[in-house]
């Protein structure tokens, strides 16, 4: 496989749908574009079916624009609201059974290293809080214990939104949801700390209200995972449908969550990661 996979065979240029021609001509592949360039290139996620104002859709758009090498990245997704929009993502992606994403990503990353020993292929496991913090937690943590070299990104909407609004381990204490009418009885899982303690060389939490910060974290996480080991990012993804606020208020809610301290921006960097970050951020 080489990057010619993104060139159209001669004679078929006009026959290919416009969307594909636009991706080839104006997409981000091989061009090192980033969040600040959004709106100037053909994006990797368009026309998704998620609810209006969904923080997950915005976060995914930002993540895709932040990937250091989208043409060499494979995403492993899993069941949940986010999975509904993977069909629209113009980048290699795999859907895994609910919670299996880190197990599948492990096999994939190892296989890619064997198949393409001279190339850098990034694997990013993405899932909601249910897939990463609850149902798939065993597989997530064991991939961290084993030191697997890929990034895990959690879309943290603090609920099982796709199935009508059950509480998840990531819901805040007291959160009242459609199917948790008396309020959640225990605290939000401390996933960034769990990730750090389980062996992630880099663990961070952020919100889509800070696109540049998010971009920096995604790049750090993906690049560090190539050399050092597992990395983790948690992104707050407000869910207007289940938390019952107006879609137009998603970003305001995100900022309010930050201001009140209910959602904290964090970044844990291991000493080895710190060293490496200095090198690649200086080079830039």
């Amino acid at each position, binding site marked *: *496989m*080489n990057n*010619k*996979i*993104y*060139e*159209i*065979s*001669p*004679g*078929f240029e006009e*026959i*290919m*749908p*416009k969307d*594909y021609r636009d991706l080839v001509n104006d997409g981000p592949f091989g061009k090192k574009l980033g969040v600040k360039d959004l709106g100037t290139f053909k994006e990797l996620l368009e*026309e998704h079916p998620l609810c209006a104002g969904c923080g997950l859709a915005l976060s995914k758009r930002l993540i895709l624009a932040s990937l250091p090498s989208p043409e060499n990245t494979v995403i492993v997704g899993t069941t949940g609201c986010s999975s509904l929009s993977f*069909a*629209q993502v113009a980048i290699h992606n795999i859907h895994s059974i609910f919670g299996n994403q880190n197990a599948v990503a492990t096999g994939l990353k190892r296989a890619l290293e064997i198949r393409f020993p001279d190339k850098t292929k990034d694997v990013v496991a993405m899932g909601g809080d249910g897939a990463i913090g609850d149902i798939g937690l065993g597989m997530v943590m064991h991939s961290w214990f084993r030191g697997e070299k890929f990034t895990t990104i959690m879309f943290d909407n603090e609920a099982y939104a796709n199935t009508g609004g059950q509480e998840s381990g990531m819901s805040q204490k007291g959160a009242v949801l459609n199917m948790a009418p008396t309020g959640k009885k225990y605290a939000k899982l401390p996933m960034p700390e769990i990730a750090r303690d389980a062996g992630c060389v880099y663990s961070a939490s952020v919100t889509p209200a800070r696109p540049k910060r998010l971009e920096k974290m995604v790049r750090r996480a993906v690049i560090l995972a190539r050399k050092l080991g597992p990395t983790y990012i948690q992104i707050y993804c407000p869910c207007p449908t289940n938390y019952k606020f107006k879609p137009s208020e998603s970003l305001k809610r995100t900022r309010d969550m930050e201001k009140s301290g209910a959602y904290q921006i964090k970044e844990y960097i291991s000493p080895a990661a710190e060293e490496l970050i200095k090198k690649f951020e200086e080079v830039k």
Partner: protein
Amino acid sequence: MQETNYRVINGPEGYLPPAAASMGVVLPDRGQALIEGRIVAEKEAMEKIAEKLLSAKNPYFFPGPLILWAWNDKAVEKAKAIKELADTAGAKIIPMSDYRPKYPMINPAEEINPNHPNLTIWHNKIDVCVFVGVHCHYANLALKIIRGGTDCYTIALCANYGHEDAMISLRDVHAEEVRNLTAVIKKMKGGK
């Protein structure tokens, strides 16, 4: 050895047509091909393909990612040969650029998707179609759906071992074999 009376003919065969393989249809050996589930000589199948394409009202080629994307020289060569073949046969082309399950956002006038190929066939009133450059499992899926829900006659030009679920299937088809098929069509056209 082939021992079945099951015929792989155009549908609609109903919501869940059986996979031809499960009905006893086996893949051809080198030099052979399949016509409606029966093993025949490759030459016979080529002539039948030419006949089907030339007598069709609205024939279409559905090239897949393996030839649409210029990922190696062989793909580019085969793509050129397919373009020439389609032009020679007077067939139009609708690409299968990738396999993302885009329903219901697919534009059936612009592209075909293996998960709902029937939409493209219905929309364009296609009576004969040719699959080429489509990864085998996606070709199998699409061919079965087409047989299940449409009356389109399917032809598969496969670079590997062929497809039981296509009405006519050639195997080991690369650029050279595509050009041979073009020559058969040219000859048949000239002879009319």
